[in-house]
């Protein structure tokens, strides 16, 4: 497999993030800066402080790092994701993606690549795998123009790399779940973005597909120098090679390397869900088992 060409991608510029001494800020340029973001769905035009979906969320994603954002259902993951993608306004605080507002970053193309959840897609839509992958170039190409030769060649390389080049002319609905996901990965990477954001990548994918996905995402992260953000309710998602993990439940409970993830944190974040499912007494043991890597790594780190 020849090396993918990433020239033409947007140069990373130092962002104008002005927050000073927050411990989450690890120096260097950040790909995504989320500063003190709170959001509540307005009821009658007034946001009720007690019903905030996100409370004081501060999260910095370094360039080139791979972050897993995990949290139970209803933790505000989708809301945070929508804010990062510029789909939601009306939050307090500040969000910057490569020094731009999220909406501006998306409109420009070539900055954010996005792999949506599987169930949001109408799979019977008459599109071939290649047509779907080419859609990733829409913002980069601009209005009234067709995709350039160079970009189409790059998409072909991506399809080969994803192992679905042979299926390129097949309708998207005829592929397996894992293949569809890899097609969406190709689309997300088509405009040579700096940041790849994946929403619940493990849902609806069988176990072999999940392993394949983990290997592929590690591989892509390294060879393309991508900044990756994986949002999931499934703790296993961070086993896909995340160098950092953030636990979200309304606010950020933990943000560091997966090795430092403790049972206490997991219990705090997932407690409600785990105790609902298996009863409070078994929570401790199950939480340890669910943590990826060795069990040592899930012990508290002093």
């Amino acid at each position, binding site marked *: 497999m020849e090396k993918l060409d990433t020239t033409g991608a947007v140069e990373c510029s130092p962002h104008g993030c002005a927050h000073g001494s927050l411990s989450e800020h690890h120096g260097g340029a950040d790909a995504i800066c989320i500063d003190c973001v709170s959001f509540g769905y307005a009821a009658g035009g007034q946001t009720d402080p007690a019903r905030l979906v996100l409370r004081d969320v501060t999260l910095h994603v370094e360039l080139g790092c791979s972050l897993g954002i995990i949290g139970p259902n209803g933790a505000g993951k989708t809301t945070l994701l929508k804010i990062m*993608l*510029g*789909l939601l306004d009306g939050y307090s605080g500040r969000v910057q993606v490569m020094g731009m507002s999220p909406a501006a970053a*998306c*409109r*420009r*193309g070539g900055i*954010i690549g*996005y792999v*949506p959840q599987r169930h*949001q*897609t*109408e*799979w*019977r*839509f*008459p*599109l*071939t795998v290649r*047509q*779907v992958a080419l*859609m*990733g170039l*829409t*913002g*980069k*190409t601009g*209005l*009234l123009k*067709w*995709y350039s030769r160079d970009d189409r060649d790059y998409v072909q390389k991506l399809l080969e790399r994803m192992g679905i080049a042979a299926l390129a002319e097949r*309708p998207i*609905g*005829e592929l397996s779940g894992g293949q569809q996901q890899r097609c969406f990965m190709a*689309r997300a990477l088509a*405009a040579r973005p700096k940041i790849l954001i994946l929403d619940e990548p493990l849902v609806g994918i069988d176990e072999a597909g999940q392993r394949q996905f983990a290997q592929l995402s590690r591989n892509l992260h390294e060879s393309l120098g991508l900044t990756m953000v994986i949002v999931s309710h499934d703790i296993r998602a961070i086993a896909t090679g995340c160098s950092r993990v953030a636990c979200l439940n309304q606010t950020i409970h933990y943000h560091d390397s997966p090795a430092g993830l403790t049972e206490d944190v997991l219990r705090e974040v997932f407690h409600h869900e785990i105790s609902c499912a298996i009863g409070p007494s078994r929570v401790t043991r199950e939480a340890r088992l669910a943590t990826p890597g060795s069990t040592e790594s899930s012990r508290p780190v002093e």
Partner: protein
Amino acid sequence: MLDRLLDLWRIDLFRDALIVGIAVGTVCSLLSVVVVLKRMAFIGEGIAHAGFGGLGTAVFFGVATGGAGGAPWQANLIVLAFCMATAIAIGVLSRRRHVEPDSAIGIMLVAAMAWGVLMLDLRRNLQSADWYVRWVGPARGAAPSMEALLFGSLLNVTPYDAWLAVGFGALVLILLAAFFKEIVFYAFEETVSQVFGVRTGLIHYLILALLSVTIVLTVRLAGIVLVSALLVIPGATANLLSRRLGQVLVYSWLVGMAGMIGGLALSLEAGSLSTGPCIVAVLCVLFAATFVFAGRRASVRT
């Protein structure tokens, strides 16, 4: 059959109708692919019925709406204004889910119908009022019958309509082609397309504007009630036949053409049957045949 069509071609009225039919049939059937894939069938119907409110208003103001009344560009303008206003009103009402979109469409649809009927009634009732007759001028000839407005008639078509249909039909097709990649992405995954740089607001209103113009061009021939058939049946039929976008567009166009030409011929052959119902009858037969013969195969595959 062909001889008979050639005979009919020598009748001016039929020739004009056929030119309009091919022009609007092409536009409608290609647009219907977008309508069906984006699930806008009902909104198309709402906008079509708004055209009836526009026609009623045009009649009230004494603007000729067909027959020997000459070039009724004011009538077209009023109908277009009603269609656009309804499209925008539906968008505003349903934004942020204050009202569900289908409820908004339902409300605007009946409002426009009632308005149109009331305007026709008022014109009849006010014929005895001096100020009204001075204002709009005396009624020239018979006002178009409600049936002609609702169900269309060959007699409504003038050479002026033929040129208008060809000109604006070409404009709609050019815009459709120019924004094709954005429109397809928007129809496939609205939210995701925004992340990939599609200006979804622009595309949404562009599609509504194209629908409005198309409906204005089509109402004279097919009638208000049956316009939406032309905007749904070709696309729905083509979707049963193929899972490839290029083929779907071609099949849709073929179905639209067959409906238009077949319907027009039927309407004259069978002794002045209403044009609209004839076109729709042919389209429905084509859809039913496709559903029976190809539908089973398509549903097995997906």
